């Protein structure tokens, strides 16, 4: 068994957020639809009709107004509650197909397939069964890429999505070398997993423009120019598996909570409320993963799209005397930092906090001047339990304010169809 070569599948939902919305609203079928980021800012998901109009990922909504009017683009606010529930359903279905599943993002999972080959005539049949099952059970279209390495499985998925001849499932393990090279020669090097825009530009300067060209470059040459991580990528492109499945996600090394404001914020009082709110969200995540942190960063900035406004963008790191997961201490540190960087006279658009220097709570070291108070841990647990049972922000520190005028706007948010009794989809009888 250990001699069986690795085979990976990457299962990726097509236009995931838009597809989720379409499951519950038949009026969205075949129409150009975009899902916008918080506060209805930028496109974070586009239907194929919108992609065909040339709208790029991240385009601000106000910039696509002329196109939207001309073609009737429907804009929806992001409904992360719905997307998370649908994602959960897809991942559960995938676990029926393979015992090895790595949830890579909200809409992508890697599956380990070796050992399953005896159960299916071909891997393509397995891929089609996954597509059919996920499509029927959830209404979400998915594509499947199959290959001997994760990096190649990502590219196979891209081919499955873009090349109709694969009918949504592309198995690179059955392609002949000439065919594979042909397909990879048509893909730009920037399509490779882990090759960002900057590295792609440097590769192009070296005359390496296509995925096939990168694959044909000797790994040691790549290592000299780009280091061992890129060398590993080239090995993966050559079919040598270097990256294994990570079935249990490692605890995050940093936690970020930030939002754009629904309305511009000028006063320090309102910024304090927002920063306090975000810090409480971040602290809850910190406790969920059983970590403590030793430093927090606060940042604020104005709206860079409003070029006529005066611009200000800054952040500060506040070290803590003792690692903690106590919301009260974390909020106090963040507000102390905010007071240091706040300047009056600007229209602030966004604020956020980042928890840095995370460590497992079990190994926290007491500092000279303070001790870990068991009552604190108990209080935080009660806080988290109440908020879990009765909804986010049921109990919060008074510093995050009551009115929260700055809170995010969701002008076009669709109902939380699968998680709220009063927002279920309606069916006419």
């Amino acid at each position, binding site marked *: 068994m250990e001699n069986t070569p690795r085979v990976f599948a990457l299962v990726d939902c097509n236009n995931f957020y838009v597809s989720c919305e379409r499951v519950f609203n038949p009026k969205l079928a075949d129409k150009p639809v975009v899902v916008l980021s918080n506060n209805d800012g930028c496109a974070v998901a586009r239907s194929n009709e919108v992609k065909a109009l040339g709208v790029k990922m991240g385009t601000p909504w106000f910039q696509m107004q002329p196109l939207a009017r001309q073609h009737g683009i429907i804009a929806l606010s992001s409904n992360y509650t719905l997307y998370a529930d649908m994602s959960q359903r*897809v991942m559960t279905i995938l676990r029926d197909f393979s015992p090895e599943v790595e949830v890579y993002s909200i809409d992508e999972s890697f599956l380990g397939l070796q050992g399953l080959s005896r159960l299916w005539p071909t891997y393509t049949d397995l891929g089609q069964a996954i597509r059919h099952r996920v499509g*029927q*059970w*959830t*209404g979400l279209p998915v594509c499947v890429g199959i290959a001997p390495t994760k990096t190649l499985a990502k590219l196979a998925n891209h081919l499955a999505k873009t090349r109709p001849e694969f009918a949504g499932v592309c198995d690179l393990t059955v392609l002949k070398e000439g065919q594979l090279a042909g397909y990879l020669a048509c893909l730009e090097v920037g399509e490779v997993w882990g090759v960002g825009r900057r590295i792609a530009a440097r590769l192009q300067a070296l005359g390496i423009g296509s995925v096939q060209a990168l694959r044909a470059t000797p790994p040691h040459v790549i290592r000299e120019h780009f280091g061992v991580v890129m060398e590993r990528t080239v090995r993966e492109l050559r079919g040598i598996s270097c990256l294994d499945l990570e079935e249990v996600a490692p605890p995050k090394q940093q936690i970020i909570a930030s939002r754009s404001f629904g309305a511009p914020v000028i006063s320090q009082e309102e910024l304090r409320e927002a920063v306090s709110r975000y810090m409480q969200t971040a602290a809850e995540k910190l406790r969920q993963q059983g970590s403590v942190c030793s430093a927090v960063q606060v940042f604020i900035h104005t709206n860079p799209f409003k070029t006529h406004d005066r611009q200000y963008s800054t952040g500060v790191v506040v070290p803590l005397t003792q690692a903690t997961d106590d919301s009260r201490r974390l909020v106090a540190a963040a507000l102390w930092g905010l007071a240091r960087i706040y300047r009056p006279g600007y229209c602030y658009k966004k604020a956020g906090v980042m928890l840095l220097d995370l460590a497992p709570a079990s190994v926290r070291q007491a500092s000279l001047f303070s001790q870990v108070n068991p009552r604190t841990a108990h209080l935080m647990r009660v806080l988290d339990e109440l908020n879990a049972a009765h909804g986010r922000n049921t109990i919060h520190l008074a510093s995050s304010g009551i009115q929260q005028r700055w809170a995010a706007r969701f002008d076009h948010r669709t109902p939380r169809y699968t998680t709220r009794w009063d927002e*279920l989809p*309606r069916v*006419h*009888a």
Partner: protein
Amino acid sequence: MISSLLPPDALTLLQEAAPAAAIPAPWTIRFFRQPIPAGFPSPAADYAEEGLDLNAYLIARKSSTFLFTVVGDSMKHAGILDGDKVAVDRAIEPRHGHIVIAVVNQEYTIKRLYRRAGVIELRPENPAFPAIRFAGLDELHIWGVVTGVVRRFAV
């Protein structure tokens, strides 16, 4: 065969319950959970059961089951009233006699699927409403099969 008309009960299951999958149960009623006095084994301990789980009763497959709120009276003689919640399982292959959710004029509608002798119809269960006829199967877009209905009384 189309099942006979059912009275609008508080909780009517329109399909035979499929085998219960292992679903975490937020609502369970536990039997025989009294404290056991030290020294004497409880005679009830051997009879302890996991309790009744309404989720498992209504929902065979959590990943493929969705809830809808019913608006309208066209299914009232099937025991589905305005305001009821229905469980809909997309994993079930729709057959003649199933109550289904279908897409008609870009809206979801709940009706009984009739498919006999080349006739394909969505039939209401209320004489005040007409059946909807389809020329072919590809015209009919079925979203899922209704597996149960839930109603709560205002008390």
